């Protein structure tokens, strides 16, 4: 909606401008105008509809976009269309975490952990039938007092669950040519735990919000196209296995191939919207029907509920899904062939698979195989999700990485918990199946390393 421009303290400046005349003489306006236009292009690049939409489709898009952006409020409220936030929640709009549909970030401007950096929660399975059932249906075992993630907010009278605190230990990495890079390994702690201590076997995993670009296109990739790259036992002995995550779909009540989220634990956009609506905003919906209060959270259970059957009814869930699956992707940048050759030679393309042909003959370039890979101990979060174990992660699609980092401005962050400040750091965190490639990369000359990084920025 409308108008949310940052206010600046301007009254004093007006007076100064009037009395002292010109203050800002050094700006070359033409340049700043061009920057303005570029900034607008970045801004609009992820939020514009496909040009092919007709008026009725555009209506669905606009409606979904509105529900994506407008704040939800706690029930009972003085509004009805967006009533039902919480009782426990992380954010009151989708766009809070997916700014301009880009990626989330680790910290908020004031150094507190950003709400777009969600703390997922689970416990080690004790192999009991109850735990086994949870693993089959959710992919993990919920923490008994707090559930499946830490909600940093509650509506009035409902205490929030806890607040995360993140510190870093510094690790020095030295290239064979002697150049050093300092890597930061996060140490996650929970503070202000309002519902008692965490279970002793708790597993915490910080996850920044995913960029939302190309979701509808990824959905059109067939399961066969994904499965043909599987090599679970590494039969071709290239050191890369690759395994699809076979997940339980709550939407369709059957096992499906996961392709969204950091561990590929969700199979469709609609299911992911519904999942985020419940877990991040506390909005019940036709797929996730019950508020996420645990048995000990009495105020959460007793909190007033919204008026309808669901906070986010089917039509509105469909509208948000339509919005996210009908976003136009930006034009591909011009690719430097030499840079791309290096990217391939080093072996990045072993997992970051360049392109797919869709049923409508469109060729897309997500640079991912959408499979799980062992990324090594240092990236492990110990959290299992269906077939993904602690060290396994979905190959992150690399398309439009530079656009999503432009949205973040100066505070760039990569990888699931945003620990890497640069693409170089992200590469250096790769381990496990990526070790051979990483070694080839680190053995490159500095100029060639820059070319690989440059290529990633072109994708």
């Amino acid at each position, binding site marked *: 909606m*409308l108008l*949310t421009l940052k206010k*600046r303290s301007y009254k004093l400046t007006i007076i100064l401008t009037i009395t002292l005349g010109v203050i800002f003489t050094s700006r070359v306006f033409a340049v700043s105008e061009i920057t303005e236009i570029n900034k607008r292009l970045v801004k*609009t690049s992820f939020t514009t509809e496909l040009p092919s939409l007709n008026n009725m489709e555009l209506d669905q898009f606009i409606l979904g976009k509105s529900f994506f952006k407008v704040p939800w409020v706690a029930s*009972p409220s*003085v*509004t009805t269309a967006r009533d039902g936030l919480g009782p426990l929640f992380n954010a009151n709009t989708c766009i809070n975490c997916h700014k301009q549909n880009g990626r989330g970030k680790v910290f908020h401007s004031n150094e507190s952990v950003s709400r777009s950096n969600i703390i997922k929660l689970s416990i080690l399975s004790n192999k009991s039938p109850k735990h086994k059932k949870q693993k089959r249906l959710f992919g993990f075992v919920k923490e008994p007092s707090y559930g499946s993630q830490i909600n940093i907010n509650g509506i009035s009278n409902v205490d929030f669950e806890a607040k995360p605190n993140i510190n870093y230990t510094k690790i020095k990495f030295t290239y064979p040519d002697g150049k050093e890079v300092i890597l930061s390994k996060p140490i996650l702690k929970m503070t202000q735990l309002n519902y008692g201590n965490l279970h002793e076997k708790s597993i915490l995993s910080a996850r920044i919000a995913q960029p939302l670009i190309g979701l509808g296109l990824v959905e059109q990739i067939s399961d066969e196209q994904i499965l043909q790259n599987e090599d679970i036992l590494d039969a071709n002995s290239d050191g890369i296995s690759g395994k699809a995550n076979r997940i339980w779909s709550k939407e369709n009540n059957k096992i499906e191939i996961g392709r969204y989220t950091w561990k590929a634990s969700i199979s469709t956009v609609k299911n992911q919207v519904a999942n985020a609506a419940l877990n991040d905003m506390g909005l019940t919906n036709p797929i996730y029907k019950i508020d996420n209060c645990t048995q000990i959270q009495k105020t959460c259970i007793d909190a007033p509920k919204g*008026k309808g059957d669901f906070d986010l009814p089917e039509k509105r869930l469909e509208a948000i899904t339509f919005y996210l699956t009908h976003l136009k992707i930006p034009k591909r940048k011009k690719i430097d062939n030499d840079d791309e050759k290096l990217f391939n030679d080093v072996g990045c393309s072993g997992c970051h698979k360049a392109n797919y042909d869709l049923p409508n003959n469109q060729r897309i370039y997500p640079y991912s195989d959408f499979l799980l890979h062992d990324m090594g101990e240092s990236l492990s979060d110990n959290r299992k999700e269906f077939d993904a174990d602690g060290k396994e992660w979905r190959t992150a699609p690399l398309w439009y990485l530079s656009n999503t980092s432009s949205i973040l401005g100066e505070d760039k962050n990569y990888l699931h918990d945003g620990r890497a400040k640069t693409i170089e750091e992200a590469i250096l965190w790769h381990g496990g199946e990526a070790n051979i490639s990483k070694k080839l990369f680190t053995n490159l000359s500095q100029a060639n390393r820059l070319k690989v990084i440059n290529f990633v920025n072109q994708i």
Partner: protein
Amino acid sequence: MKSSKILATLLLASFFTTSANALGHSEDILQTYSDIATANYKDAVNDVISLHKAITEFTSNPTINSMNQAKAAWLISRESYGQTEAFRLQNGPIDAEEGWHVIAYGAPEGQMNAWPLDESMIDYSIDADGNRTSGNIIDSTSSIFNPGGEDPVSVDISTITMDALAALNENGGDANVATGFHAIEFLLWGQDQDYANFLDDNVTKGALVAGRRPLSDYVVSKYADRRKQYLNAAAELLVSDLSAMNLAWADNDNSNYKSALLGINSNSSRNIDRNVALSQIFSGMGVYIKSELANERIAVAVLTPSEEDEHSCFSDNTHRDIATNYLGFKNLLMGTYNGMDYGSAPIDAVKDKSTIIQLMSSIESSIASIDGLAKTSRHFDYQIRPNDPQVKEIIKLKNHLRALGDEMVAVAVANGINLTVSDVTDAEETQL
């Protein structure tokens, strides 16, 4: 009252718009555009000065009559302000994100016209369970108010001042609107709402009933003085913000934004390249009519459907918002304002005007229909009810506004500026 006002504005407009073109009729489309801005903002600031005066009179002597006078002044001020909204989204002083003109003029759009707002932050309202809400800026028991939401900052509200309201606006998130036209609207009209998806209009019943705030809120209420303080401070801030716009567009000032747009600012680094200026204007006009008016203001309201998504939901003045927002766009396209021709206009260079004229004629007939019904039969919030026959007309209007927005590409090309449809689509107004 309204017609005499329009006459007065016409006289004022013809009297003051002399500037660089002594005849008030320019042959340069940028000159015409900026002369309309000068005249339109001058009217807008005069109208909010009148609003401020009416509010001062109402709060110093609250009677039914002075309350009605204040409401009338608000409605009149929306007529000129609504037209100025066409200057948005063009990197101009009203809402640019950065540049010297943001620092100099404050880009006050969000402070003047933010909506939808969470009225329960400002004053009491009746919630969906029929209970009266409390814990707002007006009835706060503490001198420090925390608006809640994302990273809210507490503000001292022991006295409700212009600065306190400015500090509260959008503090903690988008819905936390404390200032501007719609905060004043709520304090004058009060809530107009239903809670049953249009099945039962149970707070202020009736198709022609807007909010009905009782006069007693300003007389016998325990919080009467707080409400008066709030109204006065909000009106004062509105005057201050629009005065800044007036300075930005004033004639005979070679250091302001108007002179920079026309390339005659004495500080040459501020002067805007003509092609950049025109391309920002054309694409901004397209985005405004398409993404803002057609989509955000009309489509969302009629598709949701929900009263809380209509623009002026307390006063039920949304039919005028639609009419004046469109008129503002038409002013710039045709080079006219208040019935006067200001000179060469973007439309002039378009060889085949038939598509644009047909769209405009359809749009104007839909707007007249919405406007007419709102005055005689049912307000906009009733016209968007799912089974209302008027829904079709509103949907047609929205579709034709979108098509007109796309026509800005042709208008730009005819004026030597290359734009594509994506340039006139969705500038993503929300910067969170």
